[in-house]
């Protein structure tokens, strides 16, 4: 008990001695605690949230602009161009289609087809392309025409090499030409949400119109095609009539 009163007395003396500075120190410490643990974090949070709001508004504006831009794109024209692009560069190795196109170019050039060889060996058949070797007979100018006409074919066909052997009598030449045909299997490209709307450049527009000139036939019902999914559209664009599914019925 006496010990308690003694310590209380000591405390009273201490308070009496330092009462002028105890309160300022206590309030200063309290202020510091409030500043460090409340005001500074709150201020930082406020500034962070303000930045976040600005960023969100920017994102919202850009997304709105993107949606508006996408709405303005002509759906039918895009689908039509896709059809052409998928005809020129199919999604799968369509050998009958390639043969049909090559045969057509040979006929146009005034050559006669002697032989066709399709190689599926690992060395020639790589992912994305395959090779057909054709052997044709005709005049040298016809071969020249063939090479020119091949450039205008509705498929990408690349001449790998040319081997010409002239016949002793007359001006006929037998030419062996390995031709590489291309396809690209990745169908759908999906862009990120914040990615800007892809724009078709003038150069690509020019390429598109040159491709359109190369593709002689496209279905007339483009409006109907506009309602198709990509997979359906692809199969429709690259299909060649091969006859009945079941020839016996």
């Amino acid at each position, binding site marked *: 008990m006496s010990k308690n009163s003694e310590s209380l007395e000591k405390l009273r003396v201490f308070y009496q001695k330092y009462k002028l500075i105890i309160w300022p120190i206590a309030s200063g410490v309290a202020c510091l605690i409030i500043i460090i643990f409340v005001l500074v974090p709150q201020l930082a949070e406020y500034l962070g949230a303000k930045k976040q709001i600005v960023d969100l508004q920017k994102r919202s504006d850009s997304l709105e602009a993107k949606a508006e831009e996408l709405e303005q794109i002509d759906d039918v024209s895009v689908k039509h161009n896709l059809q052409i692009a998928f005809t020129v560069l199919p999604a799968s190795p369509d050998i009958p289609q390639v043969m049909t196109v090559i045969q057509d170019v040979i006929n146009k050039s005034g050559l006669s087809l002697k032989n066709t060889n399709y190689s599926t060996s690992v060395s020639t058949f790589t992912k994305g392309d395959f090779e057909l070797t054709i052997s044709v007979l005709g005049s040298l100018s016809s071969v020249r025409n063939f090479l020119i006409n*091949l450039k205008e074919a509705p498929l990408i066909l690349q001449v790998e090499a040319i081997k010409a052997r002239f016949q002793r009598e007359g001006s006929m030449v037998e030419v062996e030409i390995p031709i590489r045909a291309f396809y690209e299997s990745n169908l759908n490209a999906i*862009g990120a949400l914040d990615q800007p709307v892809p724009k078709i450049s003038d150069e690509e527009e020019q390429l598109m119109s040159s491709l359109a000139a190369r593709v002689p036939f496209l279905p007339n019902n483009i409006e109907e095609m506009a309602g198709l999914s990509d997979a359906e559209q692809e199969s429709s664009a690259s299909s060649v009539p091969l006859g009945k599914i079941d020839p016996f019925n």
Partner: protein
Amino acid sequence: MDINKQGLASAKLKPKLAPEMIAGNKQGLPANKMSINLLPPEMLYQRHQSFKLSVVNKLSIASLLVMVFFTSAALAMKVSQKSELQKSQNDVVLAENKVSGLKIKESQLLTLKERLKSIKSLMGGDSKRKAVFNMIVLLTPENLQVIDASVDKNGYMTIGFNSTSVSAIEALIQNLGDKEKNSNLIARVELDGLSMDKARIFRFNLRIVPK
């Protein structure tokens, strides 16, 4: 007791004034008035100390109140900002849904663009081979007979000729060397074996290296 009222000159009385009276004057009494403070100096000191303490306490409380005010202001700002943030987030979600609704259109456009890029990169890969072959066909004089010709992947062409006239060979080589006629396609022409048989027919091979 007011001394001035007794008719005495203050200047004469000043030196006789007690120090506590001077202190009293310093504590805000009018200059022309003088007062006598009979309180003991300890009490005056105590009063002075308690006045100081009260000022210090008031200042401390005021600073604490200011802090409390700032804290509550910050909290109020946070609350109002939260609703603003929520609104912005809702706007973004709406815009995202709008764009997602047009995803197919965007995907088609992107597919078209990528396919055009692929087509562009694949087109014209064989133009050098074709151009070299077509150019040789054009530049070969009529009286030169081509036996065989081959163009490899790199556009290198090997061509064998038969000719009865040296002037035709000269014309061909001149044509091949002329930059205007060869469309600046040829880097080098190598003559690979020249022979003449009994019938005075020249046989020779040319190896044409494109640029």
